């Protein structure tokens, strides 16, 4: 890249330069490309988001007349013990789930990368659980994770381990959910990692092995850095979705025929859903949602800052 001036211009010059950006043809073209999203964002996204923010300051319940209640929802939220329970459950779940998911997906993708042509079949196999609809997963969960008779504990019994009561013991509910949700759904991440692994330049590996580096060194010093962008992407996406876990847990624990959701399985997103659609407290639910929004925002920002240290992005600056 061309050399640029080594002295940093003053603030006024920076502002002028920034403002000049609006003049350039590039900017106009950029916004042309962005326009579909911009339009949709305002109408279908920002609009409802702002509406829900406004609603969080009311007692909107759809059916009754709405009154503004100021910060009452947020104060209630602060004192609500279930909020703490739900947050704790969600955090613990995400903390367990994301590393498990990433490690397993990476391991599987690494193995798949060595298989060559047959990989197509295996990719489909690993993606199958992702495609299996919630109904089946819900029923399956109760059958497989049954403490006395489930396949999982029977299998563990063969290797001498007495499995816990996954579905009823509060200490094991979350690990069970982690297994069911984040491990079974690695398929999508395997696909992404595979694409990344395949793109690592071969000459780097050749150079490393010529230097006598053993396999694990090659992995640590060549593979990981080169696919760190993909790892980062998967981590962010799964953190955001982990903190919003809803479907599978709801099917397994909270729907009509299996109302055994306990303190151990109450996820934050489920709590929001209940407050909104079972108890008709949309105002409160909106406040809860915006709290989660703030939390996710902070966590994502932290992850991004951390990533600058660990994520290697190739060559030319994007500046």
């Amino acid at each position, binding site marked *: 890249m061309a050399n640029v001036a080594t002295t940093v211009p003053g603030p006024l010059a920076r502002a002028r330069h920034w403002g000049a950006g*609006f003049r350039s043809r590039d*900017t106009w073209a950029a916004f042309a490309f962005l326009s579909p999203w*911009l339009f949709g964002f305002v109408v279908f996204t920002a609009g409802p988001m702002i509406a829900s923010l406004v609603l969080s300051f009311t007692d909107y319940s759809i059916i009754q007349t709405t009154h503004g209640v100021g910060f009452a929802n947020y104060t209630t939220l602060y004192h609500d013990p279930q909020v703490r329970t739900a947050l704790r459950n969600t955090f613990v779940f995400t903390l367990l789930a994301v590393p498990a998911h990433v490690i397993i997906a990476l391991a599987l993708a690494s193995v798949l990368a060595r298989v060559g042509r047959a990989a197509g079949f295996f990719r489909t196999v690993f993606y199958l659980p992702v495609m299996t609809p919630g109904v089946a997963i819900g029923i399956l969960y109760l059958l497989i994770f049954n403490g006395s*008779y489930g396949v999982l504990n029977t299998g563990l019994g063969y290797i001498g381990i007495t499995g816990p009561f996954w579905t009823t013991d509060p200490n094991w509910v979350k690990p069970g959910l982690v297994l069911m949700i984040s491990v079974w759904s690695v398929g999508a991440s395997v696909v992404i990692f595979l694409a990344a692994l395949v793109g690592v330049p071969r000459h780097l590996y050749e150079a490393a092995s010529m230097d006598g580096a053993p396999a694990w060194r090659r992995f640590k010093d060549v593979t990981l850095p080169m696919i760190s962008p993909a790892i980062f992407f998967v981590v962010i996406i799964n953190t955001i979705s982990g903190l919003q876990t809803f479907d599978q847990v709801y099917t397994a624990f909270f729907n009509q025929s299996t109302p*055994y959701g*306990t303190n151990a399985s109450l996820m934050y997103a489920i709590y929001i859903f209940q407050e909104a659609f079972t108890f008709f407290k949309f105002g409160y639910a909106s406040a809860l949602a915006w709290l989660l929004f703030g939390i996710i925002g902070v966590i994502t920002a932290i992850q991004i800052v951390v990533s600058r240290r660990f994520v290697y992005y190739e060559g030319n600056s994007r500046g």
Partner: protein
Amino acid sequence: MPGWRTSFAITSLIAALGVLTFAATFASAHSTSTKAGTLNIMGFGKGDDVAESRAAIATAAVGGNVNRPSGSFNDQTFLAAVASGNVPDLVYLDRQKVGTYAAKGAFLPLTSCIKSQKINMKQYRQAAVNEVTYKNQVYGIPEFYDVRTILIDNDVLDATHTPIGWLNPAKPAQLLAAAKKMVKIENGKVTRIGFDPKMPEFFPLWAKAYGVDILSKDGLHAHLNDPRAVKALAYTMSLINAQGGWDRFKSFRDTWDFFGSANQVAKDQVGAWPMEQWYYNVLAGSSPKVHITALQFRNLKGQPINYETGSAWAIPKGAHNTAAACTWMKTMTSTSTWLAAAKNRAALRKASNQPYTGISTGNSVADQAIYKQTYTSINKYFDEAVKKVLDVQRFSFGIPASPASAEFKAAWNDAVTRVLAGQQTPKQALDQAQKEAQNAINAAK
């Protein structure tokens, strides 16, 4: 090259278009006109023969123009309809939900409808009508009446020499002894349950057995932490703990083949448990050779009690075609319609060699007529059971309508679940539930 003013204007134009669209959507008034005379029903899609034969009669009664999208009642769909101002004329939903919607003003009181159509409210079971009455106004017409009796597997009793008299909740100590006698635990796994108290689902029944209504008749005062309720919960916990503890108990129960021919009664996997009456029909169909007895559930004083639930018809506020809705409700639940449906079902069942155990309608006049005119004997076990089911109906109670029925149910359901999971003692759990429930009711009324 366009000046920055121009480019800025153009880019903000795009955004402004978006904002305008968004704003405009709230500005325009609209009215959706439904074809005059159509009756729009939500929550009552195509169902079994009992539903369809009655629906045919009712459709004829309202003049033929009925719109019944499929599916059962769904809170989200209904709320979306209310939000958009496009309410259906009639909804069909769980009776226990009526109170909350009524308290929030989402349903119309049916006083004028009852008067103009001359609906005889006395034909309906009192407990069911109580369930849909809020602040002394009726908001729903009850349909169906699910009652609970104790279903006993005679073979298990015989095999363990357990006297049937012990299976009486009026005598807790003996019931506990019976459960211990009949339970079988092998290799740390439960292989037969003695007596399943069906918790948390039947907590109201147990509380009532110990003498307390968990919700006052006016639906405004919760009594969840009444000492008697706590005792009832503690007792059922002792039952479960004596039979392997909740983990083992539940994981065994989850393996039951409830609807098949290898069901838990046929395989003698349970001694006795309280169950809804429709299960007799299932059993008669899947495993008619079982030896069963039906017993009434009793309170500590030895009196028979029963917990009932069911569905109801209600009219949302803002409905257009209330007259047709009213006619529909009346016709669907009238004695003659029920009788026609029962006759139809009996004939169908006979033709396909399937058993028929009657219908529990919520209309006492209809129940009697159906039993007299359509019931034919299956075998002595099921005949006795059907008779018992009919008997027990008049001793029923339901949960009264309350302005926060969902929160109320969640409060006690969660409390019992916490106790089952060993996270709290019965007293702690019910104290917490009481607080939550009463707060919710107070906030909602």
